[in-house]
C-alpha cells in the first residue's frame, strides 16, 4: 500500500492520482478549501469521493427511482430503509455488495460483507433477524471460480452463524461473465419498535463521539477507492498485492457489539449512532456531523490502535471491522461505558461535537495539540462530484436481438436437457443457520423466505394491533435477460421478485436494489445502468413498490470485459395473518396441476430469448424478451398472495395446525421462472418426491420457454374437497382477475412425464440436482 500513502515520495500530482482522485477532483478540493489540501486531507477526500462512497457516476440516475409510499419511514440515503409494519413495529432493510474483496480473498471478503450489512441495520436501532445472499460466480468447471464459491459460502457460514443472525435465502448463479469478478451481494433485514428508530446524526454541541468495538489497524485501507472503485486487470501480482486492502472479520466482536449497541439504544443512552464501514472513521465522523449540521473535533491519539506507529491518514481511512461511532451526552458517558464494559466492548471518546461545521483532525485533545486536517465536514459528504458520464447503446444489441433462439433445432431428448439444468442449492444453505430466533416458517429453497415478524427484545404486538404477522423476502436478478435488454430485463426481474413474495402469501411493500455493473467509464455500461434504473422505476411504480434503499457496485470487470448488467433486487413482503404454513413449492400426490398466466393467445407459452435452456444447453444468448404486462402482473400478485395465504379460513378456528393453507384449496405453488414450465415442474417434483403426468407443453419451446406472470399450482381432487371442484372454483377467481388457467395434468407416481417430451424418474432428478454442487465443491457427500 505504499503507492497510496500520502507519505510516499513524489510530486503532489502523482499523489492525488495514486489515491484515486482525478486532476479535476483535486482542483475542486483546492477550490472548496481555498488552499491546497495537505496529505491527510487529500486521503480523506479520496475515500469519501470514491465511487463506492459517493455514487458519483450513478447519483444523477438514482433519483428517477420511486422512493415514497405510505409505509416508508426512511427512504434511500440513510444506513437502511425502514418500512412501517403496523402496530408500532418497523422493518429495516438494506442490500450491499462485497464483490471486489470477495474476488481477492473469498472467505474474509464475504464474511466482512455480512458484518458490514449487520451494522447498517442495528445502526438504525433494529435487531437484525435475517440475511439473504445472492451469489454469482464463474462456471463450476473453472478451478478459481470453485475456490471463490466455496470460500465465499464458508465465509458467510463462518461469520453469519457465529454472529447469530439466520441466513434465510439468496441466489446461486454460475455464469462465465462472473469468472474474474464474482458478485457477492448481501441483504439484511431487521425489526425494531418504530419509536426506537435512530438516525446517524451528530447533534448537541459539546456532545461526545465514542468509538465502540475493535481497535483500528492497518487492514482495509483504501478498500473503497483502490479496491472497490476499480476493475481487475490481467496482472496477477498486482491483484495479489490488493489482498491487504481486504478487511478481516471477527464475528465474536460483532456479536458483542450488536448486544451492547441494542442495549444502549434501548436505554436511550445515545443521541445518534453510525457504523464504520467503507472509508472508516473519515466517513462516520463527516457523515454524522454533516447530517447534524455541526462540526467535530477528532483526536487521533484517542483512537485505540492495533499496532504502533500508525500514521494519522491510516487511522482515518482504515476499514477495520466491528466498529461503531456513538454520539452521547457527557452526562450519559459513564452509563455508556458501563454497558460496554459488561459486553467486553472497547469504548473510547475520540471526538467532540462542535458548532464550527468543520471536521478537524487533531493529534490529541491536549492543549496545544496540532491540527492535522481542517475541512468543512459537509464537503466530504455532500460536495462529492456528480458525473453525467457519456452513455451509448451497445452496438452489439442489434445482433443479439436478431439471433432468435426459437430457430435452434429441437433437442433429441428434452428429458436429459432438463436433468442438466437442475441444481439443488441445499449444499450451500445447509451450511447456513437459517432457523435461529424461531421465526423461519419457509426456509431457503422456497420461492421466498417467510419469517414471523418478531425478534428477541422486540415484543410482538397483540394480533389486533394492526401489525403484520410475518415478512417475506426474496432476492432476484437475471443477467441473461438484462444483457439482451437492461430495461425490459430489469422489469422482468422486479416482476419475478414480487411474484416470489406473493407465492408465500405476502404482498410486496418495498424493495432494495444492488446495481452490479461494469466500468462506468464505458459508455455502454452507463447506458445499461440508466436503462436498468428506468426499467426498475417503471416496474416499481406500476406495482406500487417503493425503492427504500440501494447500493451501486461499478467497475465489475476483469481482463477488459465488463460483467453482463446484473441489477439484483430484494423485495420485502408483508403477511397480515400467519396461522398455517403456506403451500410448499412441491407436487402433492393425487392433485391436479394447473398453470395460471396471461390470457392473451400464446400468453401461457414462454420465449427462449435469454433463457436458461438456450444458454446452458446450446450456448446461445440472444433474442427479444417477451414483454411484461405490469397491470396484469399486479392482478396476478393479488390473486397469488390470496390463494397462497398462510391465514386460516376462519381466524377463530383454533390453534395453528401446521397444515397447508385451507383458506384456499391450493396445496402446492411455484412460480415459473428460468428454465420455464419444465424446470418448475421438475423442482416441484423434487421438493415433493412426487412425479407427474402432464400434457400441456407440446414443444421444447413451450417446455423451456421463459416468460413473466406464470404460476404452477396443485389442487386437490373434488372428492378431497368435499365434492366441490377446486379447479372450477379457481378458474372463476382467475377469470375474475382477467387471467387464464389451464389444466396440465396430475401429480403422482415416481416419474416426471410431459407427454411426447419428457419421461424421467424422480430419483434421477433428485440425484442430478443434488450431485452438481456436492461433486464440484464438496467432499463427496459429507455424511459418514
Amino acid at each position, binding site marked *: 500500500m505504499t503507492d497510496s500513502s500520502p507519505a510516499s515520495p513524489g510530486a503532489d500530482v502523482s499523489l492525488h492520482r495514486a489515491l484515486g482522485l482525478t486532476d479535476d477532483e483535486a482542483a475542486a478540493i483546492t477550490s472548496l478549501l481555498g488552499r491546497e489540501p495537505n496529505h491527510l486531507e487529500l486521503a480523506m477526500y479520496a475515500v469519501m469521493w470514491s465511487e463506492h462512497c459517493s455514487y458519483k457516476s450513478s447519483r444523477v440516475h438514482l433519483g428517477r427511482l420511486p422512493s415514497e409510499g405510505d409505509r416508508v419511514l426512511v427512504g434511500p440515503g440513510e444506513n437502511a430503509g425502514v418500512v412501517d409494519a403496523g402496530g408500532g413495529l418497523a422493518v429495516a432493510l438494506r442490500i450491499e455488495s462485497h464483490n471486489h474483496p470477495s474476488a481477492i480473498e473469498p472467505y474474509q471478503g464475504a464474511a466482512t460483507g455480512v458484518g458490514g450489512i449487520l451494522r447498517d441495520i442495528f445502526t438504525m436501532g433494529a435487531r437484525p433477524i435475517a440475511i439473504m445472499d445472492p451469489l454469482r460466480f464463474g462456471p463450476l468447471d473453472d478451478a478459481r471460480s470453485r475456490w471463490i464459491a466455496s470460500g465465499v459460502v464458508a465465509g458467510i457460514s463462518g461469520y453469519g452463524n457465529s454472529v447469530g443472525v439466520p441466513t434465510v435465502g439468496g441466489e446461486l448463479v454460475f455464469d462465465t461473465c462472473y469468472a474474474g469478478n464474482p458478485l457477492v451481494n448481501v441483504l439484511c433485514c431487521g425489526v425494531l419498535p418504530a419509536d426506537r428508530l435512530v438516525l446517524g446524526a451528530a447533534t448537541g454541541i459539546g456532545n461526545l463521539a465514542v468509538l465502540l468495538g475493535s481497535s483500528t489497524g492497518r487492514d482495509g485501507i483504501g478498500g473503497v477507492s483502490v479496491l472497490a472503485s476499480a476493475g481487475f486487470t490481467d496482472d496477477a501480482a498486482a491483484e495479489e498485492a490488493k489482498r491487504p486492502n481486504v478487511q478481516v472479520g471477527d464475528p465474536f466482536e460483532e456479536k458483542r457489539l450488536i448486544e451492547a449497541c441494542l442495549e444502549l439504544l434501548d436505554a436511550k443512552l445515545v443521541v445518534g449512532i453510525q457504523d464504520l464501514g467503507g472509508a472508516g472513521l473519515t466517513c462516520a465522523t463527516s457523515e454524522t456531523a454533516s447530517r447534524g449540521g455541526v462540526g467535530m473535533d477528532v483526536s487521533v491519539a484517542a483512537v485505540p490502535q492495533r499496532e504502533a506507529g500508525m500514521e494519522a491518514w491510516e487511522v482515518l481511512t482504515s476499514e477495520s471491522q466491528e466498529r461503531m461511532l456513538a454520539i452521547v451526552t457527557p452526562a450519559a458517558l459513564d452509563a455508556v461505558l458501563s454497558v460496554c464494559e459488561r459486553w467486553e466492548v472497547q469504548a473510547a471518546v475520540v471526538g467532540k461535537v462542535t458548532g464550527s461545521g468543520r471536521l478537524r483532525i487533531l493529534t490529541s485533545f491536549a492543549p496545544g495539540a496540532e491540527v492535522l486536517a481542517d475541512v468543512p465536514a459537509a464537503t466530504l459528504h455532500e460536495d462529492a462530484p456528480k458525473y453525467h458520464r457519456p452513455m451509448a447503446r451497445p452496438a452489439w444489441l442489434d445482433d443479439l436481438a436478431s439471433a432468435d433462439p426459437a430457430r435452434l433445432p429441437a433437442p433429441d431428448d428434452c428429458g436429459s436437457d432438463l436433468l442438466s439444468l437442475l441444481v439443488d442449492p441445499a449444499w450451500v444453505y*445447509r451450511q447456513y443457520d437459517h432457523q435461529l430466533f424461531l421465526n423461519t416458517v419457509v426456509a431457503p429453497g422456497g420461492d421466498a423466505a417467510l419469517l414471523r415478524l418478531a425478534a428477541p427484545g422486540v415484543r410482538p404486538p397483540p394480533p389486533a394491533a394492526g401489525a403484520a404477522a410475518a415478512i417475506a423476502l426474496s432476492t432476484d436478478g437475471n443477467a441473461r435477460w438484462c444483457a439482451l435488454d437492461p430495461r425490459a430485463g430489469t422489469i422482468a426481474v422486479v416482476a419475478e421478485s414480487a411474484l416470489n413474495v406473493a407465492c408465500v402469501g405476502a404482498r410486496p411493500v418495498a424493495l432494495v436494489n444492488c446495481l452490479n455493473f461494469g466500468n462506468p467509464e464505458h459508455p455502454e455500461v452507463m447506458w445499461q445502468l440508466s436503462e436498468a434504473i428506468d426499467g426498475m422505476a417503471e416496474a416499481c411504480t406500476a406495482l406500487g413498490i417503493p425503492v427504500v434503499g440501494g447500493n451501486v457496485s461499478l467497475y465489475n470487470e476483469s481482463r477488459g470485459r465488463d460483467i453482463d448488467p446484473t441489477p439484483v433486487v430484494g423485495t420485502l413482503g408483508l403477511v397480515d395473518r400467519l396461522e398455517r404454513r403456506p403451500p410448499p413449492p412441491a407436487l402433492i400426490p393425487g392433485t391436479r396441476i394447473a398453470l395460471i398466466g396471461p390470457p392473451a393467445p400464446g400468453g401461457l407459452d414462454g420465449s427462449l430469448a435469454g433463457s436458461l435452456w438456450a444458454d446452458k444447453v446450446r450456448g446461445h444468448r440472444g433474442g427479444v424478451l417477451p414483454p411484461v404486462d405490469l397491470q396484469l402482473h399486479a392482478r396476478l400478485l393479488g390473486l397469488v398472495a390470496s390463494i397462497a395465504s398462510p391465514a386460516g379460513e376462519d381466524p377463530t378456528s383454533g390453534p395453528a395446525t401446521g397444515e397447508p393453507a385451507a383458506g384456499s384449496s391450493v396445496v402446492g405453488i411455484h412460480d415459473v421462472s428460468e428454465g420455464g414450465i419444465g424446470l418448475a415442474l421438475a423442482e416441484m417434483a423434487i421438493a415433493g418426491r412426487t412425479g407427474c403426468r402432464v400434457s400441456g407443453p407440446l414443444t421444447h419451446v413451450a417446455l423451456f420457454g421463459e416468460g413473466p406472470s406464470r404460476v404452477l399450482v396443485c389442487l386437490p381432487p373434488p372428492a378431497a374437497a368435499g365434492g366441490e371442484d377446486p379447479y372450477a372454483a379457481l378458474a372463476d377467481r382467475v377469470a375474475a382477475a382477467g387471467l387464464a388457467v389451464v389444466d396440465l395434468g396430475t401429480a403422482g407416481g415416481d416419474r416426471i412425464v410431459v407427454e411426447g417430451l419428457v419421461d424421467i424418474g424422480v430419483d434421477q432428478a433428485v440425484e442430478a440436482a443434488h450431485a452438481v454442487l456436492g461433486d464440484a465443491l464438496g467432499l463427496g457427500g459429507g455424511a459418514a
Partner: protein
Amino acid sequence: MTARVGVVLFPGTNCEHDVIAAVEALGGSASLVWHGETSLGDVDAVILPGGFAHGDYLRPGAIARFSPVMAAVSQLASAGAPVVGICNGFQVLTEAQLLPGALQKNAGLSFLCDTVAIEVASSASVLTAGLPVGTTLRVPINHFEGNYTCDAATLEELRAGGRIILRYADNPNGSVYDIAGIANAAGNVVGLMPHPERACDPLLGSDDGRLLLGALLASAGARVGS
C-alpha cells in the same frame, strides 16, 4: 409447581432467547444467568444453550468452561438437578468434563443446518424420561463440531449404562455409534447436539422438541415437588 430454569448466557451464546421462549411456552419459567455470576440463583434446572461461546475461539467450549458460573453448574449437577447442554452447551459440558467424550468437526468438514430424524435410545435421563425407546423425533441440528467421539471403553460404558439417549436415524456428521445425545450415569446431566427448542411449533415444521423439553420440565418439577 412451575419449574424454574436458569439459562446460561456466555458472550457469543445466541440461542438463549429461543430456549427461554420454548420453556415458557411449555409452562416453565426461565431466567438468564450471566456467565460471570458465581450463583445460579433459585433454579430447579439449568440449560446451557447453543451458540458460539467466546466465539468458539481456540475450541468450542474450551474458554467457556473457565467461566465463574461453571462452578455453580457443576455443583447443581452434583446435587442431582437437571443440567442440559444443547449444541454449544453440550460442547461446554464435555470440555468441563461433566460429560465424557468430545465433539469434533463434522465428517463432511462443513457446517450443517438441517432438520433430521433422531430416535430415543434410552429413557434413563431427565430429557427422555417417559419417552418410549424407539420414538422417532424430527429435530433441527445446527453445528460444525457435532461429530461425537470417545474411546472404546467409554462407548461401552455409555452403551451398557443406557446413557446413549438419542441416536441419529441417518448419521449426518460422523458421530460414533450415531450418537446425538448422552447422559451421565445418574441421568441428570445431558448433552445433545440437536436443538429441541427449534422444534416446538408446527408452524416451523416440527413440534417434537416439546416432548424432550416437556420431559425436562417434568423432571425439574418432580424434584421441586419431592
